[in-house]
């Protein structure tokens, strides 16, 4: 559905040049939900604007929905939907008018029926909602209207730029449901960007992590997390008798030789272990600690998050970078 090679864009402005996107390669298959995950300023929007014909790349080539981006931008436009980061409605125009204009511009036949269908599906059919201008809608309703505008012509490929940024948790969850249904029911290919880890995790079949204009990692959420070697086990130590430091040291010595433990560090009086296949090795760890006479207060195991993945590939935390 999307094949891009060496896509790049440099902005030249008053404040010098910005290499916003530097050589992005990507392939998206039909029916996939693919996410671009990266901090603000990573180049997500710029890449999307290039793929949607809004911005000419300074280098690279791409085929989008079967049409060459440079040779046939009009062909690309007919086959894609695009929902921009900030939406695209006039705050004073009634929603239905926006949808009607959009349908006419795409040459949709049976526009009224299509609009009603979309309104039903995206829960925009409530009491006179479509008669309201977007200024009189909630954030979630406005976002669903933006999506309806992008779907009027039944595009096989939909681009969503930061679909849930600024929404409350409930509206986010609701929007995720709608995005999932797009693929499950219509087989729509969805390419979205986000700087939320949980969103990428919850929605995407495949994630491309982008940082400073380059793709730094790629894979399914599970694959990516597997790349961060092992699970993180945190052991809180009981402090009967000896000093906490001594206990921690003893515990570390006891576990250092354990085959599943890759790394063991003492952090604020607790022991942080990086462990292969945490679930299976947990019992062994407890036994080893017990044998060494180390008292346990608590034990926590965490699966690596996408943030850990980001940390591993960029050396920075996504939360800090964003």
């Amino acid at each position: 559905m999307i094949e891009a090679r060496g896509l790049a864009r440099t902005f030249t402005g008053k404040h010098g040049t910005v290499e916003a996107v530097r050589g992005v390669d990507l392939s998206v298959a039909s029916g996939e939900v693919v996410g671009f995950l990266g901090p603000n300023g990573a180049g997500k929007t710029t890449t999307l604007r290039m793929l949607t014909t809004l911005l000419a790349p300074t280098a690279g080539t791409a085929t989008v929905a079967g049409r060459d981006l440079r040779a046939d931008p009009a062909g690309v436009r007919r086959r894609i939907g695009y929902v921009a980061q900030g939406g695209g409605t006039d705050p004073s125009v009634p929603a239905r008018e926006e949808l009607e204009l959009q349908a006419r511009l795409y040459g949709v036949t049976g526009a009224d029926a299509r609009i009603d269908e979309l309104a039903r599906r995206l829960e925009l059919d409530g009491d006179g909602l479509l008669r309201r201008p977007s200024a009189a809608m909630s954030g979630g309703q406005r976002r669903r209207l933006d999506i309806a505008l992008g779907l009027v012509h039944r595009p096989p490929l939909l681009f969503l730029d930061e679909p849930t940024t600024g929404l409350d948790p409930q509206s986010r969850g609701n929007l995720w449901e709608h995005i999932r249904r797009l693929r499950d029911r219509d087989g729509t290919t969805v390419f979205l960007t986000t700087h939320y880890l949980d969103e990428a995790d919850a929605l995407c079949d495949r994630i491309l992590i982008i940082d400073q204009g380059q793709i730094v990692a790629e894979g399914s959420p599970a694959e990516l997390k597997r790349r961060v070697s092992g699970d993180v086990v945190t052991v809180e130590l009981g402090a009967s008798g000896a000093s906490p430091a001594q206990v921690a040291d003893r515990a570390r010595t006891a576990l250092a030789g354990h085959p599943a433990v890759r790394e063991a560090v003492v952090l604020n009086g607790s022991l942080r272990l990086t462990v292969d296949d945490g679930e299976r090795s947990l019992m062994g760890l407890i036994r080893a600690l017990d044998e060494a006479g180390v008292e346990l207060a608590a034990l926590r195991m965490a699966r690596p998050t996408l943030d850990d993945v980001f940390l591993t590939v960029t050396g920075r935390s996504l939360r800090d970078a964003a």
Partner: protein
Amino acid sequence: MEAAVEAAAGRDGLVRTLRDTRLIFLRYVRQALRNKVGVVFGLVQPLLYLVLFGPLLSKVGGVQGAGGGNTWRAFVPGILVQLALFGAGFVGFGLIADLRSGVVERLRVTPVSRLALLLGRVLRDTLMLVVQAVMLLAASVALGLRAPLWGIVVGLVFVALLALSIASLSYVLAMVTRVEDAFAPLLSTVTLPLMLLSGIILPMSMAPGWLDAVSRFTPFRYVVDAARAAFRGDFSSAPVLEGAGVTVALAVVSVALGAHRFRKENA
């Protein structure tokens, strides 16, 4: 064969452009009508010119070259051009609002004709201005303007073409500056000298030689002179022909500039 394909593509392109222009035109007409306050003031504003400025005319009635028998005949064309200059000059603000809300990008992702995005807006602006001009003319006639009907119609055509040109240029400026803070000062810097040099208030024939010479380089002077001549009924006079030439040339250049700008990728 290839020529036939190209011709068909060209014809499709034309059909598409016309259809899209109509859609965009209707969108912005509706937008204008939705703004009730805007509609009322748009209609009241031309009358304000007449009511607050018209009475002064009796004082300048004797001024040389100001229209002879009927001072309204010299005054009204100037007000019409001023209306076009300020009314159509400000339309760029609407485009900046659309750039900010994302409407421009949303429309640009659709297969809409790029030219239609300009023409639809510009035609709406022209229509609005013609309605205002007709209001102003009707009121002027009620207050004392005497001019041949054909003269008035020709004057209206001049004003319509002028509004079309100014609206296109306003959009170009808005597209280049992209924010109100840059657009507003630029707009007033451009419009004020243009207005003063056009002889809108008083005929340029009263100006000293150097000022008269400078004003010959601004297009509006010719439009005002042509409209004045038309109001007098001299259709075949040099000012009308010059004015027609200048107005048409200005319209062609402005729309071409606008079209170029709207086609460009980051427009």
